[in-house]
Structures are given as C-alpha cells and as structure tokens.
C-alpha cells in the first residue's frame, strides 16, 4: 500500500487482537488459567496529513498505545495495513524507523540511570544514525530546545519526573524525524511541566518545524488545546474524527450543566440518567472526604431543567455548586462514548 503524498500516516482496516491468560479466582496459582481474547484495535481507518498535530483520545484500554506500537513496527497487525511516511509498517520496517521519533507512555524507559543525560543521548544518537561528526552539536541543540542544556551532564537518576520526560522527548527528536509518535507524553507530570511540554510540541515541533505529530492522551482538555484534529477511540474502534471545534459543535445545540452535589449514591446517579430530557450524564467523585460528586449533564433542551432540579429536591440531594455552561470537548466525548473519560 502506498500512501498519498499528502498523508504521513495511513491505516486501512488495521486490527490487533491479544490473547491473555486469566487466573481463576478459586485457584491458588497460575498453573490453572484460561484464555481471553481482546481486540485492542478493531478495523481502524485513519489518515493523518503531513504537518498535522493529531490527537488520539480514549480511556485506558481504548487501543491508543497498541496503535502507536503498530505504527512504530513493534507490533505487526493481525489484519489490515498501515503506512508511515509512505512506508509499510510490516514490509518496510527500517524505512519506517528512520521516519519516526517515539515516546512511550512510560517516559524514562530505556534510559541508563547511571549515565548522564548527555551520555544517554549520545548512545541513542548513535543507534538513530545521527552522524558522528555533528553528533555533539545535535545533542546540545536538542537539549537546548527542550530547555535542559544546563542539566546535560547531570546523572539521569537525579532528574525529576518532568526532566526525564523532556529527555525522552529529546531522544525522539535526535534524528530529526518528520513524524513523531508521542504516547501520553505528559502522564504523571505536574501542571507546569505538562504545559511546558505541550507548548513545546504545539509551538516548536508542530508550528515552527512542521512535524507530523500523533499525540495520544486521555486528558481531554490537553487534546482540545493543542491538536488540529482529534480521533476518539473506544474499545479499539474509531467513533469520531474531526477538529476539536467541530466535535464540540456536535453538542452545541444542547444545554450543559456542571453540578457539584453532596451525598449522592451511585443508584441515584443511575436514576438521574433516566430523568426526562437528560441526554447524557458523567459523574465522578469530586471529594471523597466531603462526599461530593461532580456531575456533568447534557440536556436535550432547557425545558428539562425544572425536572432535574425537582429530582435533586425529592431525593434530598444537596447542590453545592451549579453552573450552566457551553458544551466542551468532554461533553462531546461523553455524548460519543456514553461515559466520562475517567469513569
């Protein structure tokens, strides 16, 4: 399969199934196991344009990491085809590898903890074919780009979580690849570090350098802020693909309520879902100690509002905070998947 010149990544009916062993709870050891098959990526068709910052959004287990591994040649697809930079991920693995830089969801993996940041990058520069003559300059340039030049000769194990992630980004950038596959690059980082990495990806890598970025995340607002286009995956299937604004517009015509309530049971949440006029509802624990639940309700129209308030009154549920809002990408996500991303 040859991709059109406009596209950096193309998948056609790509499918990947895993078989895993499950231990029976009544048995004491793993000698007694049965098999379970899970389709991680299910007949997925995607086209990502060159220079696009493409977000892949989905809950844990939606198939995001599996797709990244398929595209970087670590997993062969069971069915379908995929190409990266015009090269087939099964038949032209070496060309695919020369076209990509990858960050896996655990950022510090593959680093040698007793070497310095520079020492680690020097090793990876060699295996990524960065020419020996310009290697030092390239490493220092990349470290400068991510703001870690001053920490270049510090031992890796002394780096903070944010610095380790940045170094993983630097490693992916070493060979100056046209395509970057970034699997949850900000997971586990504090707000400041996450923002700094996001800004760098949006402004430096995407806008200035024109790189194609596939960015997987389960942080909805993160995807909404930086991505040109977003695909939503659920159980390995593509359920939506559009720009963040277009996805928000899917639910624009409806009303959204953001409510914090006290002492609401899961049964009451389920009952609320069935109240007339409630199009979708996502609930998560706001404060376990105070017994507060955060509800995000999308109403079919504003006429449903009295019925909702009546429900809270009858069920003796205390409203702590109540806001009427514009629909967000999260509302689109709830609309499409039936649940919030953290549920």
């Amino acid at each position: 399969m040859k991709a059109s010149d406009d596209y950096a990544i193309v998948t056609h009916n790509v499918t990947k199934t895993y078989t895993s062993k499950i231990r029976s709870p009544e048995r004491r050891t793993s000698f007694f196991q049965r098999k379970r098959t899970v389709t991680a990526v299910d007949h997925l068709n995607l086209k990502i344009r060159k220079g696009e910052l493409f977000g892949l959004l989905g809950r844990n287990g939606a198939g995001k990491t599996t797709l990244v591994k398929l595209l970087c040649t670590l997993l062969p697809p069971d069915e379908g085809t995929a190409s990266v930079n015009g090269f087939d991920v099964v038949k032209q693995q070496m060309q695919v590898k020369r076209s990509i830089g990858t960050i896996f969801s655990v950022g510090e993996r593959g680093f040698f903890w007793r070497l310095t940041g520079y020492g680690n990058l020097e090793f990876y520069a060699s295996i990524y074919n960065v020419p020996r003559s310009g290697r030092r300059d390239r490493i220092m340039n990349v470290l400068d780009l991510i703001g870690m030049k001053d920490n270049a000769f510090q031992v890796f194990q002394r780096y903070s979580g944010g610095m380790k992630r940045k170094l993983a980004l630097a490693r992916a950038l070493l060979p100056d690849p046209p395509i970057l596959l970034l699997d949850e690059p900000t997971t586990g980082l504090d707000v400041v570090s996450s923002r700094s990495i996001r800004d760098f990806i949006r402004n430096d890598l995407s806008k200035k350098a024109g790189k194609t970025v596939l960015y997987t995340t389960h942080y909805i607002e993160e995807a909404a802020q930086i991505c040109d286009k977003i695909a939503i995956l659920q159980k390995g299937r593509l359920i939506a693909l559009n720009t963040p604004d277009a996805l928000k517009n899917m639910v624009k015509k409806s009303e959204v309520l953001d409510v914090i309530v006290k002492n609401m049971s899961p049964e009451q949440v389920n009952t609320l879902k069935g109240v007339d006029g409630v199009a979708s509802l996502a609930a998560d624990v706001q404060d376990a100690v105070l017994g507060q639940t955060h509800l995000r309700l999308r109403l079919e129209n504003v006429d449903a509002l009295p019925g909702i308030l009546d429900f809270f009154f009858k069920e003796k549920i205390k409203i702590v905070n109540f806001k009427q809002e514009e629909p967000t990408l999260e509302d689109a996500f709830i609309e499409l998947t039936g649940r919030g991303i953290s549920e």
Partner: protein
Amino acid sequence: MTLLQELDKIYFFMKRDILSFSTYKTNILLSVLSALFGALSYAFLGSNAQMQSVLNSYHISFTTYLLIGIAFNTYLSQSLTLVQKTINPWSLEEVLVSPTGLVTFIVGSSMWGFIWSTLVIAIYLAVGVFAFGVVLSVNIVGTVLVVALGISTFIGFSMIGAGILILTKQGDPVTTVITIATNLFGNVLFPPQVMPQALQVISYFVPQYYFFTTIRQVLTGATLQTILPDLLILVLMCAVILPLGYFVYSWCLRTAKKNGTLSWF
C-alpha cells in the same frame, strides 16, 4: 498492631512471592535440574581416584588443568548469558524502534562483556603463572582460533537461550542444559574419562568438550596440526549452532512482537 496482624502480613508477603514465582514454571523446573546435575559434577570431581592417572595423558599438572578449565569456563559462562542480558524489556523496545539491525544490536551489546571477560581470564592465568608456577607455552594463532570458535558457538547458544527467555520471561532451558553439559561433559573440572563409559560418550557430542580439550593444548604448546581433528569438529558444530541461534532468536522476537508480550517481565 497485634502479633496476628504481623503474621498475616508475613503470610501475604510470602503469598505474593509464591504467586509471582509460580508464574515462572520453566524457572522452577530448571532450578531443580541445576541442583541435581551440579551435585553430580562435584561428586565426580571429588570422589574419583583415577583422576591423576587420566590427567597424565594430558601431559599437564592438575593445577594447570584446573586453572585453564576454570578461567575459560568463566569466559564461556559470560558468553552464554551475554545476549540474555541485552533483553531488558524496557530498553529492548527502545532499541527495536531505532533503525538498528539485530546483528549490530547483539554484537554491540555483547562487546564489553567479552572485553571484561578477557581481562578476568588474564588475571586468572597471571595468578596461575606467578603464584602457582603454572607453565604456559601459548600458541597464539591456535588460541585466537579456538577462542573465536568457542565464543561463536556460545553466542549461538546464548541467542537460543535469549530467544526462549523472550517468550518464557524467566528461566530458559537452554542456558541450564548448556551449563549442566559444560560442567558434566565439557572437560572443565575433570576429564570425561573418569566418568562411566556410557556418560563419556555424551562428551563427544558437546562442543564444550572440544573447546576445553583444544584450548588446553594450544595454551601448553600444541601445534594446529596436533589439534586439527578436534578443531574441525568444533568448526562444524559452530557452523550449525551460530546460524541456528540467530534463527531461533529472531523467530522468538517476531513471536513476542506478534503476541504483544515484548515488554512483559
């Protein structure tokens, strides 16, 4: 905090380890086998009265025999696990997404291990020569040739073991079987001639026997012509085991990639 609570915790620590341990079934079997065969090797070394008379046919002292055996066994043991050491699941994936070939990866990852092993052997031999009066008369060409063949053969074994380890995650039967075969039939600590006839025959089918027989000869002055028959058998074994190892390793790697278990522990 009661004694009962603490005992309960100890029980769950133990249960955690047993459950984890029981998932590595191959490893359990191999540990038992290693213990059994290890005991056999030392029994042969310690109890056989024929040892000195057999050694007379080697024209070297028992100290020289043992020193060369132990020194080069360290070398081969290192070679046997070199490829396994490179397959840390986390760094393996990082290397496999880079444009680096499998041969470069294996050779590159093994290089320092060989250099270090060579230094260790030099220390062994120096101690033997200077502290125990061991006399060596090294045939340099012969030594390089035999060592190269030995290493290549063991890299082959190592690749087979590493390949299986990629699939089983802990405990590869190849490394255990090779270690047992080396200790029992490899002419490392005692000549196979001190074993019962039926067991002696097995020695002639393991490359370690030819490696240790020839390395002792070239280190004590034998010419290439003298060792030629054993050397040819070693060449033949190497020509089979090395490519077989590469084939098994790449097949296991492909299988783990297909199953999505490459980064599992």
